[in-house]
């Protein structure tokens, strides 16, 4: 899935329809693509944490006159950051869930009650109910080296005040748990 961002001629049609750009002034997909094209490492860090804000909605891509595969570009930039130890803390928590439960969003006692109430089994028939199946997931995560991506935590880049999202007390946990 090599991206084709070299086709980009910087017209800005992508940024103009991007819902995340509308909300976060610093999120400018055209600029990120330019930085990536020029391959400047220090500029790359200027994209953090914003590059992880993309909702992968494909609106930019649908609007690009050059048929740039913008979302593939975003994914590549993210993969490089993650392989440099720059996974966001919230995403790191989601990733750890995968090791522990085989799910990015595991079940809860409250949901088990709802399941019984609906006539479903208390535990879904998925990997989280079986140690054997969960072992398979962990084996595969080790073979692919995904476990190593979670090893060293680089201190997260702090945003300037005004750019951080203000979270309601208690909402961080739910966002993390359900942030797949």
């Amino acid at each position, binding site marked *: 899935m090599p991206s084709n961002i070299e086709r980009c001629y910087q017209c800005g049609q992508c940024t103009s329809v991007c819902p995340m750009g509308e909300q976060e002034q610093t999120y400018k997909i055209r600029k990120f693509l330019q930085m990536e094209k020029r391959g400047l490492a220090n500029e790359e860090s200027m994209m953090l944490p914003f590059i992880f804000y993309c909702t992968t909605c494909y609106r930019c891509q649908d609007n690009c006159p050059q048929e740039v595969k913008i979302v593939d570009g975003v994914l590549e930039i993210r993969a490089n950051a993650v392989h440099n130890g720059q996974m966001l803390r919230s995403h790191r928590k989601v990733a750890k869930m995968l090791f522990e439960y085989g799910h990015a969003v595991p079940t809860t006692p409250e949901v088990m009650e709802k399941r019984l109430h609906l006539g479903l089994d208390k535990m879904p028939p998925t990997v*989280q109910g079986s140690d054997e199946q969960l072992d398979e997931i962990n084996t595969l995560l080790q*073979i692919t080296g995904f476990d190593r991506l979670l090893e060293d935590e680089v201190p997260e880049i702090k945003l300037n005040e005004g750019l951080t999202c203000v979270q309601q007390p208690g909402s961080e946990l739910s966002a993390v748990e359900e942030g797949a």
Partner: protein
Amino acid sequence: MSNLSLFLGCVAPNRYPGIEAATKKTFSKLGIELDDLEGASCCPAPGVFRSFDKTTWLTLASRNIALSEEMDDDVLTICNGCYSTLKEADSELKKDPVLKKDVNEKLIETGHEFMGQHDVRHVIEYLYQDIGVEGIRKMITTPLKMNVAVHYGCHLVQPLKEADSGLVSGTITFFDELVEATGAKSIEYEDKMMCCGAGGGARAAALDATLRITENKLQKMTDAKVDCIVNACPFCHLQFDSGQQEINKSSCTEYAIPVLHYTQLLGLALGFSPEELGIDLNSTNTAVFIERIRNGFVTA
């Protein structure tokens, strides 16, 4: 037994089990018993895991497809994110024998093999193509009289585009047609094809900004005076349903739009009660909506 296994993903079974129950019940009514996909994991989520490490993403996705192939089944997903992951992984592995061999060398360590002899289906696409709008209409016992805001979701449309599906050429209507087969009316509203805000790992990375995207959509739906939102994805479902509560808290608004997955809407039209479909288990209160359903929506 059927030739379809139900891939649950994460959010449906672990947050909105009503969607899982509704899928099983409606398919059963349509004469299709879905097989359980035992041991299935996270798809894994396209926004986070695909962008972190492609090999990991592809390997876990191929395990999920392999589990289904072992039962001689096609995979049926009820989630746009799962569809995006499994459909893309499936087609990449089918196209690229070297990649397939590489993935299978990993999978074999757990006793599985990706064969590439089956297909990945989204419930909406399956119902539209294999049962058909007329087929659904004929099964309806309780025609619905409500106005619906249909939310397609980005990762229903995009994989179909990549598969070169005729469903997404020109004006896109397949989901609206399925909704209208239940008797409900799909209401046009501004920015209908806009994202719910949650995808791509953005909900975890920038919750507040994603909720502002959601709020824009909720406002447009409110302006169009809809009775409920109907989606095709538990993650969009969560963003609209739990999201309304989060938005009301942070912006002092009073959004109160009931949120239904299509299988829940279809379930109502097939005669199931709202409780059997888990419509009463949403975060945003649905008591008034349920009362109106009982009264045949005459007070609308």
